C-alpha cells in the first residue's frame, strides 16, 4: 500500500502518458473531457443539482397539499411571473401547474437525478478504479453519454417555459391522457418530455454498453469474476437492465411522439370521446400497449435505482465492520437473479387495467419470487454486521440507516404485488409512501453514504464529521415523519393525484375520514424540516473542497479495494503501475495478517 502513496504528487497525467504532451485547456479538461473521473464528477454535480431542483418542485406541491388555495410563500410570486397567471394565479398553484410539477418531479428524480448519480456518477468514477482499469473502454462514447444526458436535462427544464407548460400526465405518461392533455399546442410539454426521454435513453444506452464492455474486458490481471467488489457486480447488472429495458420505452416514446405530432393512433382506441367531442383520430390503437412498454422499462428501472445503492452500502459496511461481507457468493447470485427476474414482473403495475386474472396471477407469482433475492441481499448485509467492531462514521451511519429504511420500503411493497390487496391500495398515498421509502431514505441515503465515503478519493479532503452527523440524524427523523403518515393516508383511501390533497373529495362526506387531511399539514412541516437539514450537507459539500481535513494517506478508510491504491486524486490513466490482484475484495481482519485489512493488490 505504502508503495503507491509516494506517487500522490504525480502531476496530472503528464509523467506517464504519452498522449498528453500538453496540459489540457479549460474546455478539454472540464467540458469535453474523456476521462471517466471528470465525467463522473460532471454527472455527480449535474445530478445533485437536479436532485435539488426536483426537491423544490416537491416543496411547492407539498405547500399546495397542506394549504390548498393559499399563495405559496416566496416561490408563488416567482411562478406567477415566470410561468404565467394561468399557472399560478396570485401565487396560488393551479391544477395544471400541480400536475406538471408532479409529472416532472417524478421524471427529474428518476431519470435526471438518482440514476445519473448512482450509475453515471459513482459508476463512472469508481467502477474503472475498482477493476484496475486506466479508463472506460470507450472514453469518447462516455463523453457523448454525458452530453446527451445534459441535453436531455435542458430539454426537460425548457419544457416548463413553453406555452401550456411542462408535461402533466404523470411520470408514467399514460395514453390517451398524455396525448390529449394539451389539445391546443402541437409542440406541447409532452412532446418535449418525449424528446427529452429519447435523449436520456440514448445516453444511458451508451453508458450501459460502455460499462459492460469495461467490466468484461478491462479487469486487472488476477481480478477474476468472484474477486470483483460487490459494487462492480451491482453496476454490471444495472448496466444490463438499462441496456435491455430502456429500448422498449424508446420505441413507446417514438410511437407516442407520432401520436402527438403526426396524429397516429398507436395508443388511441376507437371511438375516443372527450369533453371536446369525438377525438378526430383513426382509432384502432391500444392504451394497454403503452402501459406494457412503459412498465417493461419502468419496473427494471426500480432495480436500476436500488442495485447501485446496495453496491455502495456493501462497500461501506464491509469497510466499517472490518470484516468480510457475509455470503459474498449469495450476494452475487442474488443480484444476478434480480437482474433476470426484473424483466418478468412489470405487469404487477397493471392489475387495475383488467388485463385478466391469469396474467395477473403470473405476474403476482414472479413478483413474490423477486422478493427472495432482495431479502437475501438485505439479510446478508444485516448478518455482516454481526460481531463486527463497527466504526460509526457518517458514511456508515447512512449505510446502516439504508438497511431498515429499504426494508420498510420493500416489505410494504408486498401488498402492492399481491393482486387482491393492490386493487384497493392502487393509486393511493400508500403507493407513494412505499416507493419513496425505497428510493428516498433508501437509495438517496446510500448515495449520501457514497458521497461521504468517496469524497476523500476525489478531492483529497474529508468532509466534516459534525455537519455530516447533523445531516444524517435530521434527515433520518424527517424522512420518516414525511413518509410514514402517507401509509395511513393511503390505507384510509386518499388518492395520490388530487391537487388539493383530497379536500374537495372529502368535503361532501363521501369516502373516508377527513381527519387524514390534517396529516397533510404535518407532512409538509416535516418536508420543510428535511429541507432545513440538507443545508449542512450543501455547506459541507462545498466548504470541504478547500477547507476539509486533508487526507494523510491514499487509503484513509483503510479499505481493501483497488480504488484506494491509486494516487489521490487519481491522475489521468489512474494507476501509477499496472495493478495486479491477488485476493478477494473484502479480506478484512485476516487472522495472522499484519494489519486488519489486506488490499486486493497486496501480494502473498
Amino acid at each position, binding site marked *: 500500500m505504502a508503495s503507491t502513496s509516494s506517487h500522490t504528487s504525480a502531476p496530472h497525467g503528464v509523467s506517464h502518458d504519452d498522449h498528453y504532451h500538453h496540459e489540457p485547456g479549460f474546455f478539454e479538461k472540464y467540458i469535453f473531457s474523456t476521462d471517466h473521473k471528470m465525467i463522473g464528477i460532471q454527472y455527480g454535480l449535474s445530478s445533485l443539482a437536479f436532485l435539488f431542483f426536483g426537491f423544490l418542485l416537491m416543496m411547492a406541491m407539498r405547500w399546495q397539499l397542506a394549504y390548498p388555495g393559499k399563495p405559496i410563500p416566496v416561490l408563488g410570486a416567482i411562478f406567477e411571473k415566470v410561468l404565467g397567471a394561468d399557472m399560478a394565479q396570485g401565487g396560488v398553484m393551479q391544477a395544471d401547474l400541480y400536475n406538471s410539477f408532479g409529472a416532472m418531479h417524478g421524471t427529474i428524480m428518476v431519470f435526471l437525478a438518482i440514476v445519473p448519480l448512482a450509475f453515471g456518477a459513482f459508476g463512472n468514477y469508481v467502477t474503472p478504479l475498482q477493476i484496475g482499469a486506466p479508463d472506460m473502454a470507450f472514453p469518447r462514447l462516455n463523453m457523448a453519454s454525458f452530453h446527451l444526458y445534459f441535453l436531455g436535462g435542458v430539454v426537460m427544464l425548457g419544457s416548463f417555459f413553453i406555452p401550456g407548460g411542462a408535461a402533466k400526465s404523470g411520470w408514467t405518461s399514460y395514453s390517451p391522457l398524455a396525448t390529449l392533455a394539451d389539445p391546443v399546442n402541437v409542440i406541447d410539454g409532452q412532446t418535449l418530455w418525449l424528446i427529452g426521454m429519447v435523449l436520456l435513453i440514448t445516453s444511458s444506452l451508451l453508458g450501459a454498453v460502455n460499462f459492460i464492455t469495461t467490466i468484461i*474486458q478491462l479487469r486487472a490481471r488476477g481480478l477474476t469474476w468472484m474477486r470483483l467488489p460487490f459494487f462492480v457486480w451491482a453496476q454490471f447488472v444495472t448496466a444490463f437492465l438499462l441496456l435491455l429495458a430502456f429500448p422498449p420505452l424508446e420505441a413507446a416514446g417514438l*410511437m407516442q411522439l407520432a401520436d402527438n405530432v403526426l396524429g*397516429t393512433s398507436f395508443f388511441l382506441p376507437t371511438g375516443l370521446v372527450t369533453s371536446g367531442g369525438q377525438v378526430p383520430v383513426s382509432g384502432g*390503437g391500444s392504451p394497454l400497449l403503452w402501459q406494457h412498454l412503459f412498465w*417493461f422499462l419502468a419496473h427494471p428501472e426500480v432495480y436500476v435505482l436500488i442495485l447501485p445503492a446496495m453496491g455502495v452500502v456493501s462497500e461501506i459496511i464491509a469497510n466499517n465492520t472490518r470484516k468480510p461481507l457475509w455470503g459474498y457468493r449469495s450476494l452475487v447470485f442474488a443480484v444476478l437473479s434480480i437482474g433476470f427476474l426484473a424483466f418478468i414482473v412489470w405487469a404487477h403495475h397493471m392489475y387495475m387495467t383488467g388485463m385478466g386474472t391469469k396474467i395477473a396471477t403470473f405476474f403476482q407469482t414472479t413478483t413474490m419470487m423477486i422478493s427472495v433475492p432482495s431479502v437475501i441481499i438485505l439479510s446478508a448485509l444485516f448478518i455482516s454486521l454481526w460481531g463486527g467492531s463497527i466504526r460509526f462514521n457518517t458514511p456508515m451511519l447512512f449505510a446502516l440507516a439504508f438497511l431498515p429504511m429499504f426494508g420498510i420500503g420493500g416489505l410494504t411493497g408486498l401488498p402492492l404485488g399481491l393482486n387482491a390487496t393492490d386493487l384497493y391500495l392502487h393509486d393511493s398515498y400508500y403507493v407513494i409512501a412505499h416507493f419513496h421509502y425505497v428510493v428516498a431514505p433508501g437509495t438517496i441515503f446510500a448515495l449520501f453514504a457514497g458521497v461521504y465515503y468517496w469524497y476523500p478519493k476525489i478531492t483529497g479532503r474529508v468532509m466534516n464529521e459534525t455537519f455530516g452527523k447533523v445531516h444524517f440524524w435530521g434527515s433520518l427523523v424527517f424522512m420518516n415523519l414525511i413518509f410514514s403518515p402517507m401509509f395511513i393516508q393511503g390505507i384510509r383511501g386518499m388518492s395520490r393525484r388530487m391537487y388539493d390533497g383530497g379536500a374537495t373529495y372529502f368535503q361532501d362526506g363521501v369516502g373516508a375520514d377527513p381527519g387524514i387531511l390534517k396529516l397533510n399539514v404535518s407532512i409538509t412541516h416535516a418536508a420543510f424540516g428535511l429541507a432545513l437539514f440538507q443545508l449542512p450537507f450543501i455547506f459541507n459539500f462545498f466548504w470541504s473542497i478547500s477547507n476539509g481535513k486533508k487526507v494523510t494517506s491514499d487509503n484513509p478508510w483503510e479499505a481493501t479495494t483497488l480504488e484506494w491504491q491509486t494516487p489521490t486524486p487519481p491522475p489521468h490513466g489512474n494507476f501509477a503501475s499496472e495493478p495486479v490482484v491477488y485476493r478477494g475484495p473484502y479480506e478484512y481482519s485476516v487472522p495472522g495478517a499484519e494489519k486488519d485489512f489486506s488490499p486486493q493488490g497486496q501480494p502473498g
Partner: protein
Amino acid sequence: MDIPYTVNPRSDTGLYNAKVGIWLFLASEVMLFGAFFSAYILLRVTAQQGFWPDVADGWPHGLLNIPIGTFNTAVLISSSVTVVMAWMALKENNFPKFRNFMLFTVACALGFLGIKTFEYKEKFSHYVIRTTDGKVVTGHFDVDGKSPLFWTLDTVKSKNIEKLKVEVDIPNRYRFPVGMQVPEDIHKAHAEGRHHDERVIEVSQIDSLKAFIPSTHPFFAIYFTMTFLHGLHVLGGAIVLAYFTFIGTDLWRKNPEQFTNRIEVGGLFWHFVDLVWIFLFPVVYLL
C-alpha cells in the same frame, strides 16, 4: 497506461473491446425492434373487424408493393454478402478488392433507400375514399396531370374541385390473405387484365378522403414507423461504411489490424440491419 485490448483480443474472453461493445449495442437494438414487433402484434390482434373495409379481419393486406419489396430484400441480402467479402479481402491484404466490394455494398444501401423513397411517395399519393353511401374505395387521382400528395378532403374542397376522376383499384389478389379466396368478379377482372376502374366521384358525396399516411390506420402507423426506423439504420450503416471506404482509409496504412476490426464491427451492424429487414419484410408485406 493505455486502454488495453482496443486492437488485440483479451485472452480469456477472446474478444477485442469494440466487438463486445457492438454486440451489446445490437442486443439493445433487438429489444428496440422487438418492442415494435410486439406493438405490431398487439395492434393487429386487437384490430376491429370491418375497420378496414374490404378484408375480413380488420387489418389491411396487400397494400404494399410486393415485387418491389422482394427486390429490395434481394438487394440487402447481396449487400450482406459483399460486406463479408470486403472484410475477407482485408484479411487477404487486398485493399483494392476491399474497396470494390465496399462500393457495391454502399451502392446497395443507397439503392435500397432510393427504392424505399419511391415506395413512400407512391403511398402518399394513394387514397382511401369513403362516400356518403357508406362505400369505401382506394385509388389514385390526378389533378392537373399530377398525383397530389398528402391531400385531405379539406384540401380538395379548398381547391374548389367538384368532381374527382379516380382510378379506383380493383383489389389485387394479395388483398385477400392466404386461406381466403379471391371473389369471382375480381378474379375475372384480373383474368381480363383489368386492375383499375375509372370512376368519377362527386366531391359533395365524399365523407372522408385520406392518403396512405400514418394517421390513416394503425397499419400505416406501424408500417411507416418501423420501416422509417429501419431506413435510418440503413442510412447510418451506409454512412459508416462509406466513411471507411473513402475517408477513413488512413488507418489501413497505419494500423491495418485495427482497420480490419472496424470493418468487422461495421459489417456486424450491417448484418443486423439486414436481418431486421428479413423479419420486417414478411411481417408487413406478406402476412
